[in-house]
């Protein structure tokens, strides 16, 4: 553009800034707002990876750590607790491992409050009310797993829970993603079921069945 043309065209706006400057500023406004939005999108792009491909989420469980199967409905897997009769102070340990199947995305699991069924002819006191439990994340499932500072999933060092309570609040148990050729790494859950010391003498001969549902939720 010829230099001598500029003053004339720039003078079109009679008051204030020359019109060209204002045109540039108007463009600048759009640029500024747009840049802000772009920056926000840029910062946000970490979790907005924008993948909309169909994902697979599928889990399986094992009570011995080696043989895995689907247990979507009751009775499902039977945890290998010592089934001999309990008395006050008895403690039982049992393992449940959960993993994602081949191709599955990662997730997290939640142990839900057990549904407890007492013996049909039992009257109070009921065994199902007296039993307490804790769960840690550990492949070794003995008393040793509950000492020190294990990863608590249900309960804590001095906190044993009734069967009809679920996983500790704000506790997340991760389930590793699988690969296209192999299942994900297992998440071992060690259950400790206790009939506390001092439990009523009237519990003798009573029975109870706990049905736990471990619900896994996909991370994607």
């Amino acid at each position, binding site marked *: 553009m010829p230099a001598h043309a500029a003053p004339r065209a720039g003078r079109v706006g009679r008051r204030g800034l020359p019109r060209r400057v*204002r045109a540039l500023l*108007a463009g600048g406004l759009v640029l500024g707002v747009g840049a802000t939005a772009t920056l926000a999108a840029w910062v946000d792009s970490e979790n907005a990876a924008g993948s909309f*491909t169909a994902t697979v989420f599928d889990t399986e469980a094992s009570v011995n750590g080696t043989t895995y199967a689907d247990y979507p409905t009751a009775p499902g897997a039977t945890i290998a607790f010592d089934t001999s009769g309990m008395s006050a102070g008895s403690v039982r340990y049992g393992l449940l491992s959960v993993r994602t199947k081949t191709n599955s995305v990662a997730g997290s699991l939640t142990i839900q409050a057990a549904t407890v069924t007492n013996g049909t002819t039992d009257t109070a006191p009921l065994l199902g009310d007296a039993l307490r439990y804790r769960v840690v994340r550990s492949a070794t499932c003995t008393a040793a797993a509950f000492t020190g500072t294990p990863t608590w999933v249900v309960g804590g060092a001095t906190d044993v829970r009734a069967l009809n309570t679920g996983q500790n609040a704000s506790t997340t148990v991760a389930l590793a993603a699988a690969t296209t050729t192999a299942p994900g790494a297992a998440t071992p859950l060690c259950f400790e079921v206790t009939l506390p010391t001092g439990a009523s003498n009237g519990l003798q001969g009573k029975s109870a069945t706990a049905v736990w549902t471990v619900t896994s939720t996909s991370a994607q």
Partner: protein
Amino acid sequence: MMPPDAVSADPSPTGVASAHMKPPAANRAGRAGRAGRAGRAGRAADSILTLLAVGGSLCIVLVLLAVVFHVSIIMFKTGSMSPTIPAGSIALVQEVPADAVAVGDVVTVDRPGMLPVTHRVTSVAEDASSTTSANTHARTLTLKGDANRTEDPAPYTVDSVKRVIFSVSGIAPLVAQASDPVVLGTTTVVMAAVVTWAFWPRRRRAKAAGSAALVAGLVAVTVSLAPPPTETLAAWTDPVVTTAPFAAKVIPAPTITGCSAANVLLVGGRVTITWILPAGHAASDIVYLWSSNGQASGVQAVPLSSSVVTTGPAAGGVYTTTFQGALLSNLLGGQVLVGVRTLDTSSWISSDRLARASLPALVGTGSCTIL
């Protein structure tokens, strides 16, 4: 940024800026020449821009409505709401207080530190906090993905949710692409250029093109101020069910095999029982019982002493326990209960095993019955 037409016009004598400097006649001629060459292209551009402007105005209205009525767009990354809302769908959602939600609604709830989840409401419960705190809108919602076998593991306590108004499948990738920083940045630069061009001082210019460009600029500003589309999960759930039976044992009681009672010269009352141990227990686990009133309700434990003496085991594991002396001195001519029970290491006790003895008032043999 130089307006595009100014750049193209510069080398040409018929360009707008150069035309200013020519005498009126030359100017008119230049104008005619320019209109001849650029007219068709300009008209085409005009119609396109007008079309864009109409769409843009609609856009602005929608954005304003969205802001006023808290409506926004969510994009589904996963498909547990299929077949209603498959992965890759977008949905128009409106933020509503949680107490306005009904069972069957599809809602998006925020989760701290995670992508929000969008599932169908299966139950609505008044939250404890809604009756005590200032926020009466809080509700505890149970959600379930249509394609999931189980409900979400934990209910959500929320003040407000985004309720799905309608959804369109398959276009989330496109919308997401529009939110891509590169696309956004490019659009920004282009729009800024268009706006600057629209305002650039010129004597004459296609009016429609100018206003359309302005509208386009306005749209760009408004749209970038609108809430951006957010992603949501319709997360999959997969249950594992485990069943664990538990039983409490019964503490076994000893078995009384025989009993006898007598009033013995110089000794007084004496009751002797024979019994055998229950499986898994030692003689030290046995507690001796005695009831002075002859009733089961009066049974109490008595320690081994000169009044309670146990010998054994004899052949067949038989123990013999003798109750006598002070325990029975006042009971001659009456009835007495004696017996045994097992005390487990768990401190649980077995049922009582008792025998009822009748002691004669005079020296002689009484009777004894195992109960």
